[in-house]
């Protein structure tokens, strides 16, 4: 297990190193530099521009800049955010927890819904209920995240006035709420964005779960269990599902990039102050440091999440550890 962990960590570190190098390359392939949009004005003298660029090391040879960039990055320093006060890393530190809460809730919900629906379908494969559910999940999987988010917003927040329209908390009333009230307020704000993300990814999880169970159900040990007189329900939930969960656990790590990508749009619709909304705002403000920082942070979240998912997989399936 320890060797498995070490190999997985080394792979993750290599991936993040390559991602960082690519983002450096990307910035230097692009026309101009991070300062051109803010500094390229006739009102600023050439010497002042040169002084600014020299202060951030942009006049140094590319190789030196690259080493410096990696060194700074290793210390968590992404450079100054030149359109909002404070370093870029501070803006990221505010946004990441919100995204983690949103994604974590959506992940748990989507796997619960997906596994339940997929198993339900597999237990009655070929029936009308199975086909209706299959068609429903195909339709849900075809919905754009931002559109489903907007529709839920329209119905539950604007029409029914049942849930708040955006943000993580009620900025006006939050301070005067009791602890229980605050928790409820957070949950009410979390409900729609988390449900949007969860519904969308649960559709593909259900399809996987159904297929995985259908692979397990014809196997010999299931027939043995049936022959021993174990009830259908117990066979499904105790014997078959335990084995059919393995492919679904692999999906856990693989679904992270899509989930984080979807979160970018959902955060925008529900004004959820997370990584995606920060990246969007920074994009419109031409704040390259924050945009790149958010992108790299997204990669780190995906890589770390992938390692956790792999460890989980190794914990339940000894064959993975041996590989």
């Amino acid at each position: 297990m320890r060797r498995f962990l070490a190999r997985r960590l080394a792979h993750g570190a290599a991936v993040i190193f390559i991602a960082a190098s690519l983002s450096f390359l990307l910035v230097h392939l692009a026309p101009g530099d991070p300062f051109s949009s803010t500094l390229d004005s006739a009102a600023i003298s050439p010497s002042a521009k040169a002084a600014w660029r020299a202060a951030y090391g942009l006049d140094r040879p590319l190789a030196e800049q690259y080493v410096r960039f990696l060194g700074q990055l290793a210390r968590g320093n992404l450079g100054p955010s030149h359109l909002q006060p404070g370093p870029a890393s501070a803006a990221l530190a505010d946004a990441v927890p919100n995204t983690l809460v949103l994604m974590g809730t959506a992940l748990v919900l989507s796997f619960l819904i997906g596994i339940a629906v997929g198993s339900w379908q597999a237990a009655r494969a070929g029936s009308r209920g199975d086909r209706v559910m299959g068609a429903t999940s195909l339709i849900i999987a075809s919905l754009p995240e931002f559109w489903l988010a907007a529709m839920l917003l329209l119905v539950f927040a604007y029409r029914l006035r049942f849930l708040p329209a955006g943000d993580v908390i009620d900025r006006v009333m939050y301070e005067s709420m009791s602890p229980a009230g605050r928790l409820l307020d957070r949950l009410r704000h979390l409900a729609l964005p988390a449900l949007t993300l969860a519904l969308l990814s649960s559709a593909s999880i259900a399809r996987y779960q159904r297929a995985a169970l259908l692979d397990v159900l014809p196997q010999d040990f299931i027939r043995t269990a049936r022959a021993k007189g174990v009830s259908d329900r117990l066979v499904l939930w105790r014997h078959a599902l335990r084995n059919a969960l393995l492919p679904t656990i692999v999906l856990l790590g693989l679904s992270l990039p899509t989930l984080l990508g979807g979160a970018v749009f959902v955060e925008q619709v529900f004004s959820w102050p997370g990584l995606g909304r920060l990246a969007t705002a920074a994009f419109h403000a031409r704040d390259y440091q924050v945009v790149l920082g958010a992108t790299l942070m997204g990669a780190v979240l995906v890589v770390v999440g992938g390692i956790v998912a792999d460890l989980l997989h190794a914990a339940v399936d000894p064959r993975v550890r041996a590989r």
Partner: protein
Amino acid sequence: MTTSVRQDVLTAPRAPDGTAAFDRAIATSPWRSALGVLARDPSAIVGMCILLVLALTALAAPVVAPYDPRAQPDILALKHLPPSLGHPFGTDYLSRDVLSRIVYGSRVSLSVAFLSVVVAATIGMGYGAIAGYVGGKLDNVMMRVVDALLSIPRVLLLIAVAALWWDKLGLPGLVLLLGLTGWFEVSRLVRALVLSAREDEFVTAARALGATDTRILVHHVLPQVVSPVLVAATLAIGNVIVIEAGLTYLGMGVRPPNASWGSIFNDGMRDVAGAWWVSVSAGAALVITVLAVNLVADGLRQALNARQLPAR
């Protein structure tokens, strides 16, 4: 594999139940047999019909659209009109007819998605074929790079590149950008297929006969890669339509005066509580298209027997 099927067809005249042991079409051409399976799949046919109608609508936009999509007849009296007979999908905040805008928007949405997937599939096939065929250290390095690129959520990668290149990003630039961020999975798929095809005995035979690497790759290995890539590319079209619309909604994709379904959705979000019909109809166009693409992709997957591909 194809040779052995032909052998069987020649030697097995009849199956015990009296039907032909093999459909002759299967033996003559895998493509024709795939087409046969596809023609018997009702949901794939529905999907193809929808796509055909959409493509024709896009081509004949000036004939189909009831109004000029950019005309703003009266931005005070005629703005945000709810759906009616004159304006089936209502009007938007500039009094433009939403139906006409969606009809014209399909040109941008569909062509951007299609072209960028062509770009992505081409790059992905080339990259994956080289990695899989050369193998060894080069393969290792090339695949680690793909791992790194895949670990960055595509939307965030697009935001980063769009931020850096924004001033030069017209429609061709957007196609290129979506293509350049879309080939990673294709390359992984192609590499895996090439890696297994390389071990096939007829490839060894071709090499023994003195075929060059290029000839083996083009004539013996790549033909086996085409059908899985076709399925992946079909799925990717549905994905890219949504991603383009999403980017445009975030203000990073198609820019005025061009308008895709994403632009119309974005216009509607200015006042979604009041004039819901703008975003709802733009979204409905997106959903119907993506659903049709997914139905066709599902049908293709079964017809081409490319089951190793992930479901969306």
